[in-house]
């Protein structure tokens, strides 16, 4: 490093005898290391305090018997809370709901987002306007969008969906249109559709960025060589998009797993739609069972860590290509 010579030596205070040159170099090296790390520290320290310490506290509380409604009956519970969590059918069903909800929403919105990104990658009249229209669902405040779906669209007696059915049936002179009650007939699908509507634009934005960063000349060359549109997609576009698909799926999963707004607003967790965040919220905020809520939290964190480790490996393939810098 050329800068090493211009840096004032840190070991001069040791007097005329001074430390051995090697030791001095090591010390300035260490000082430089710290100078490089220093800008990182505020963010790291802040995150450790605000996010990691509460988790430690959660682990501690998970081993205590503590219900805020019975403050006198507090003590060490060993694994009682965990036993309760694993034998609780509601907890088990909310694990299933969370997995199903997340996988469905992420996969469907990823596929729809890919389709829309491919459509928007071509030039046509009004492309900018169409992109703006498509982005909007992602920009509506999630609670607002949940309220919108629940009251203005799904509602059985005056929602838009059944209103349109009535209108179509009247066109054909019928007075008995089907009026399904969307939220009671298929509650989980009702939540999923509203979330897919909200997250498809997010996926589309990421994949569109991927499509537009493709090298145009390679595609042109492939076309000249007689490759079909499908071949170009399969052998050029898709491999290039891989990192973007991974990234979109990863970020989408991080946010959809933690979804609270849609479940809370549309079904209030009823009819098998309670996911993990909602179940923990209920145990803590409504049942006031602090011990059990914490045990649920710890179980969720452990499961997330397994998934996160797997996902981070995937992201590390994203990172590795940049390491050459």
């Amino acid at each position, binding site marked *: 490093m050329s800068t090493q010579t211009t840096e004032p030596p840190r070991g001069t205070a040791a007097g005329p005898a001074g430390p051995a040159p090697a030791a001095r170099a090591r010390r300035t090296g260490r000082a430089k290391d710290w100078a490089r790390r220093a800008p990182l520290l505020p963010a790291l320290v802040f995150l450790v305090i605000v996010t990691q310490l509460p988790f430690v506290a959660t682990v501690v509380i998970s081993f205590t018997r503590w219900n805020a409604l019975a403050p006198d009956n507090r003590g060490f519970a060993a694994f009682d809370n965990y036993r309760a969590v694993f034998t609780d059918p509601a907890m088990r069903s909310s694990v299933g709901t969370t997995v199903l909800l997340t996988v469905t929403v992420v996969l469907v919105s990823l596929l729809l987002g890919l389709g829309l990104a491919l459509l928007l990658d071509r030039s*046509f009249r009004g492309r900018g306007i169409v992109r703006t229209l498509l982005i909007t669902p992602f920009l509506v405040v999630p609670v607002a969008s949940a309220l919108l779906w629940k009251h203005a669209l799904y509602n059985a007696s005056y929602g838009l969906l059944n209103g349109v059915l009535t209108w179509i049936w009247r066109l054909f002179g019928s007075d008995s249109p089907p009026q399904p009650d969307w939220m009671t007939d298929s509650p989980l699908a009702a939540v999923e559709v509203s979330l897919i509507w909200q997250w498809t634009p997010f996926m589309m934005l990421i994949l569109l960025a991927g499509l537009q960063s493709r090298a145009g000349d390679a595609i042109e060359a492939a076309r000249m060589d007689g490759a079909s549109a499908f071949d170009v997609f399969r052998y050029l576009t898709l491999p290039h998009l891989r990192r973007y698909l991974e990234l979109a799926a990863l970020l989408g999963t991080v946010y959809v797993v933690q979804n609270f707004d849609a479940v809370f607003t549309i079904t209030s967790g009823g009819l098998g739609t309670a996911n993990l965040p909602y179940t923990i*919220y209920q145990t803590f905020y409504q049942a006031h069972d602090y011990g059990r809520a914490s045990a649920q939290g710890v179980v969720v964190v452990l499961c997330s860590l397994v998934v996160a480790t797997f996902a981070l490996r995937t992201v590390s393939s994203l990172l590795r290509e940049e390491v050459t810098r």
Partner: protein
Amino acid sequence: MSVMTTAPRRRRTGGALGLVAWLCGIAFFLPVAWMVLTSFHSETDAATNPPSVGAGLSLHGYREFFGGGGGISPWPPLINSLTASVVSTLLVLALAVPAAYALAIKPVRKWSDVLFFFLSTKMLPLVAGLLPVYLVAQNAGMLDSIWLLVLLYTSMNLPIAVWMMRSFLAEVPVEMLEAASIDGAGLTTTLTRIVAPVAMPGIAATALISFIFSWNELLFARVLTGIVAGTAPVFLTGLVTSQGLFLAKVCAAATVISLPVIVAGFAAQDKLVQGLSLGAVK
């Protein structure tokens, strides 16, 4: 296209696919359009079956919302949301920019581990740390205070902000930094003259995304705030008292509360794309 015969065919399919794209765009926008239209209807026109698309427009919903119909003014929640989002976004930038600079321009040893740590905090469900935060806040007398939300929103958005900022700062060419150091530029000059101009759009995108996620947050705000510090999303859930009776008012409120994010998002579409694709964009 050099192959003459394929050119017209491709243009024609392009036209058909353009139409499909338009239809998709309209389909995705339709619920939002319906929300806005309903917000301008009278309560009776808002809740009809079949829908009364052509009914006369009315400002009733907005008057009810801003006039505090039902006894609660919307201004304190809106101001709370603005405070929490703006202050936490500023804090996020103050913490994330130096960290990202350290990770991008002068890679620290084991820098990818540090990045992993940042992202892993984002993967742990926030709800699992909610109870201790609640208990500490209760003992410290910080429940129903907007500053607690400011702290939590900062920690919520910091990991993604570090990731985004790092990928933007990594675009500053090393040669430019070396040239600056040869010319004797100090750290301050390097930052303001070389790094800032390249990174400014990235900082803007990071700020926008941090603002959106803070503005939208519901769970923490619902559990940790009450009458004084309630935010706009909490206010919105409180508006639905008896189901659908005030559909126009609810739609007006949803429109007003979504408007800042929608306007900012429209204005910065390209930045949003760049920001969301993190380091994947070259």
